[in-house]
């Protein structure tokens, strides 16, 4: 596991996974009948879609660990042409008795269907938790899958999350990742833009503080012609937080007229924070447009000065700037309670942290 060198995960051993017995699914009973929504019981017997064999996520051993030891998750199939407006919500809340979560989620959106899924991971304070997840998305022709993952586990919890999507012709997968918690996070999202006009979008924000470590990897693999991908990441680092960003745009031969954009913007708010960025552009096709840009630095001093001249303290001014940078992404969460909880959390950490 070479990639872990950068955030210093050493000699990691998997814990013996205990059961996760809490209820985590909330979805309107009536709508449930239209879709096929089951708790995951056996990955190997899932009818479709096939799980991509080559997908290694945050690491082969982590995927294997999920396949062997999963203790929660859903298997969701949305029938053809069905557009479900009401979002499906999964709330995972780790506590003393349920401190291990290994979730496998399978989302299969059939032709022209539409679905939104919100998954919230949190834990009560002082519990040493472990989360290892694998989410597999298959978006058939013309379908739309919106998935929002919200991670605010406590500072004693290790968090690993592998996510994969296969996007067919004119289908859209919008993935939102909000990383606010954990002691150490390894996150991977890989999307294959398989066919003509496949569209894949990843928006993420992260806030690192104290001794937090984050390794975030986003990969867009363009295979289809006129496919489009977009990676946009915004983050802020406080205290001794350490972050690695890896963004990969991979244009395979045959992905003519495709477009990929990759942007990362990180605000460094402490002299002891550490930030690595590795934005890669891989290209086998001449007729594509690929672009990446990374910017890093402190908050613009004149901006800060302006806000402070209006009577705000430096901390408040910094908070305002970070919040305004995060807001467009937080606003994508379709639940008011989650949005306000996140805002309170960010405020607390920036002002009192």
């Amino acid at each position, binding site marked *: 596991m070479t990639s872990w060198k950068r955030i210093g995960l050493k000699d990691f051993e998997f814990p013996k996974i205990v059961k996760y017995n809490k209820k985590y699914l909330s979805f309107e009973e009536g709508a449930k009948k239209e879709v096929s929504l089951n708790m995951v019981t056996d990955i190997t017997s899932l009818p479709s879609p096939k799980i991509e064999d080559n997908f290694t996520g945050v690491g082969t051993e982590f995927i294997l660990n999920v396949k062997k030891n999963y203790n929660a998750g859903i298997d969701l199939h949305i029938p053809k042409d069905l557009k479900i407006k009401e979002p499906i919500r999964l709330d995972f809340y780790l506590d003393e008795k349920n401190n291990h979560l290994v979730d496998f989620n399978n989302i299969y959106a059939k032709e022209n269907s539409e679905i939104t899924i919100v998954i919230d991971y949190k834990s009560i304070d002082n519990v040493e938790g472990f989360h290892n997840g694998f989410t597999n998305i298959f978006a058939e022709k013309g379908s739309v899958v919106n998935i929002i993952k919200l991670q605010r586990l406590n500072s004693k919890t290790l968090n690993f999350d592998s996510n994969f999507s296969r996007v067919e012709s004119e289908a859209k997968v919008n993935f939102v990742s909000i990383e606010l918690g954990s002691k150490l996070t390894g996150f991977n999202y890989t999307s294959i833009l398989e066919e003509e006009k496949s569209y894949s979008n990843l928006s993420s924000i992260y806030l690192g503080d104290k001794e937090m470590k984050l390794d975030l990897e986003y990969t867009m693999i363009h295979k289809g012609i006129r496919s489009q991908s977009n990676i946009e990441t915004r983050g802020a680092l406080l205290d001794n937080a350490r972050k690695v960003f890896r963004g990969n745009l991979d*244009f395979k031969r045959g992905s003519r007229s495709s477009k990929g954009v990759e942007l990362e913007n990180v605000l460094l708010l402490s002299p002891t924070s550490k930030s690595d960025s590795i934005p890669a552009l891989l290209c086998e096709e001449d007729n594509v447009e690929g672009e990446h*840009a990374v910017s890093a630095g402190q908050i613009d001093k004149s901006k800060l000065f302006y806000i402070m001249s209006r009577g705000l303290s430096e901390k408040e001014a910094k908070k305002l700037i970070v919040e305004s940078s995060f807001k467009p992404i937080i606003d994508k969460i379709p639940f008011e309670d989650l949005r306000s909880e996140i805002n309170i959390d960010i405020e607390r950490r920036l002002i009192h942290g």
Partner: protein
Amino acid sequence: MKNKKTYIKDINRTIYDIKDKDNSIYKSQKGLTPEIIKEISSKKNEPKWMLDFRLKSLNIYNSKPMPEWAVDLSDLDMDDITTYIKPNTKQSHSWEDVPEEIKDTFERLGLPEAERKSLAGVGAQYDSEVVYHNIRKELVDQGIIYMDMDKALHEHEEIVKEYFMKLITPDDHKFAALHGAVWSGGSFVYVPKGVDVDIPLQSYFRLNAPGAGQFEHTLIIVEKGAKLHFIEGCSAPQYKVNNLHAGCVELFIKEDATLRYSTIENWSRNMYNLNTKRAIVEKNGTIEWVSGSFGSKVSMLYPMSILAGEGARSEFTGITFASKGQHLDTGTKVVHAAPRTTSTVNSKSISKNGGYAFYRGLLKVTKGAYDCKSTVSCESLMLDNDSKSDTLPIIVLNNDNIDIGHEAKIGRISDEAIFYLMSRGIDEQEAKAMIVRGFVEPITKELPLEYAIELNNLINIELEGTIG
């Protein structure tokens, strides 16, 4: 809509590909043993510390594995590479004394012409040994030392001992160790305090013997407040066997000093170019790299700037042109190790005809290096669909008081741009060439005139082809 494309012929390398008969008086055996090292060292009549250094490096070389993280080196059989070849000639100071054959080669490459165009000094290396070296008298009077490394080792042993392979140590990587063991020839430049060398110094390396390795060592020391522009050119004829170039360039830029180091590398397409270049810049000093990579089969080349003193500056301007059968893995490394240091990286790459251009870069800001600024920009142009172009910049920031920007773009020549130019009466081929010339213009303008012309010619030759 069907996209029309211009198909572009391969480069005409005729003048580079002329082989001379291998007339060397001494050739070390193929492969590498302590005996060979001892023999090279004794042939060169070297001091003992150098022999010890070579043997130590050989040990390190043998203990390190082949690097596997970038290019495919499996075709490179080190036992097939001859490490030392002494051409049948003594070093000359007058062009007339250089043997006809070697002279012919350099004439074809335009070397003496360059000198006639008043370059300050010229050194030429043929296989492992320097065959021709000249420096203008007024520069000598100012105290500038410009000679080949072997000679410097004897005449300025103390300086050489102080700096030689201190910046790039044999422990760095396998080919640095190999270099330490078998290095031969190269240039040594010493510019004393406050001296401004206003015309460039130049050296040319040529590898002629088949299956040979060239391991020249360039050591440049620019003292406080001094200024220098150094130009390096490389070429070799085409043989069926693989050749290896593993040179080392060590540049020491002292306080307030400025060094511009320009390279046009056009090795033949059987060359493994595994070169290491590094500069250390002290307070308010400046290093400017201008780097053009056109030739070789495989290149791994990442000139590195260590900004060690407050206010030090580095600038990298590079172009890589990968064509058929070439895998050019190039880039640059910048380490900001002191406050208020600034760096600019401007890299362009073009790939065509199945060529593979890879930009690999590192930008690192250390903990105490506050108020640093850096801008990195990479652009890639693919001229057809058989080629590959990758960009992998690594940015490591260990401090918050900095301002870092990075951007990269990849793409092709847009049909609209060509259409526009053609609507103005320019034919398609010329339109393409114009766009490519425009693309590399930021680099050409950094080069001395004769090199800029050479680069433009090179591009024109590359782009001459049929339209399909």
